[in-house]
């Protein structure tokens, strides 16, 4: 057997370790996607929609952008 082919052939231990690592990565990816889908994507999507509405409509209608007043005491 060619020396390179010898390296690529995995024994059972190596196969098991590779499977475990792959499964772990998959689980982490699924969990991460779930978190992103629930928490981050709606915010990003909402931001894009709001920004788009502002740029396309609000800013074209001649409305004012006068700084609003605040009443909280400054720390």
């Amino acid at each position: 057997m060619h020396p390179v082919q010898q390296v690529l052939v995995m024994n059972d231990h190596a196969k098991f370790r590779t499977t475990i690592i792959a499964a772990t990565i998959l689980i982490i990816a699924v969990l991460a996607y779930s978190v992103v889908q629930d928490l981050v994507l709606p915010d990003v999507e909402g931001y894009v929609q709001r920004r788009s509405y502002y740029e396309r409509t609000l800013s074209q209608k001649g409305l004012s952008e006068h700084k609003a007043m605040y009443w909280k005491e400054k720390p």
Partner: protein
Amino acid sequence: MVMPNAIQCELCPTECLLEDYQVGGCRTRINKGGTLYSLVYGKPCAVAIDPIEKKPFFHFLPGTTAFSIATAGCVLGCKFCQNWQISQANPEEVDHQDLSPEDVVRQALYNRCRTITYTYTEPTVFYEYMYDIARIARQYGINNTMHSCGYIKEKPLRELAQYLNAADVDLKAFTEDFYSRICGGRLKPVLDSLVVLKETGVWLEITNLVIPTLNDDRVQIRDMCRWIVKNLGPDVPLHLSRFFPSYKLKNLPPTPVATLLDARRIAMDAGLRYVYIGNVATGAENTSCPKCKQLLIERKGFVVLRNSIKAGKCPSCNTKIAGVWG
């Protein structure tokens, strides 16, 4: 998760938490890059000269005119709103004109209006515009009045009150349930605003739209009137207005006149001295002396036919009549 740049509006008790480029529930304030901006400053959608009685003010400079302005938007969402076409619209959906605070005062002076009134929609939504107009108007001896739902936080109200001469506040009902279900707000902040206005010396009148089946309960009306007498005094004029089907409450009939007359009697029994009925001709739109019952101001609709009050007193028995007369 709250994104960076989110800010909380401090103007009304709703306290909207606004993310970047989000517009508040009032439709008129936007968070842009962590700073709050008013979209309606100097952009009124309604401008008119009205009799002051239309606001309604019956004890504040009767027979004079008020330069009246409004922008789009409202802090509440009352299902019976009579001006819903502008109060429940976004500023970008209605026609507006450019009118700076200086121009408003100039036009009021030109048209010999003794008062500028912030009305039609909820003036709280154009707070900065109203505040700047009021400051300039004060310098020129013009009065500032507002017709408001009173749904505003204490600090902005106190700051505004230093330039306000009079306020007519809609006390829409006397239950939290009504405010929650019908208006999308709360009763308590409105009651707090009424007390603050009284404390700060702003002339106060109250309007209550009597809606069949929703807020015409006799006990509720009695409790409301007793609260007014106890916390604001018996001299606060109360306007009981007739409801007509509108907006999302087209399924209800107009308020029966008998209900309004009954409500007026309940209010006077509770101790209120000046109770009027609006939106219908009943004869209960005149002002009489609470002591000798002499007719002092005779009105027909928004027109003052006769005013015999002299130096704020009844000419017959010399009783002081609460109000701003001269």
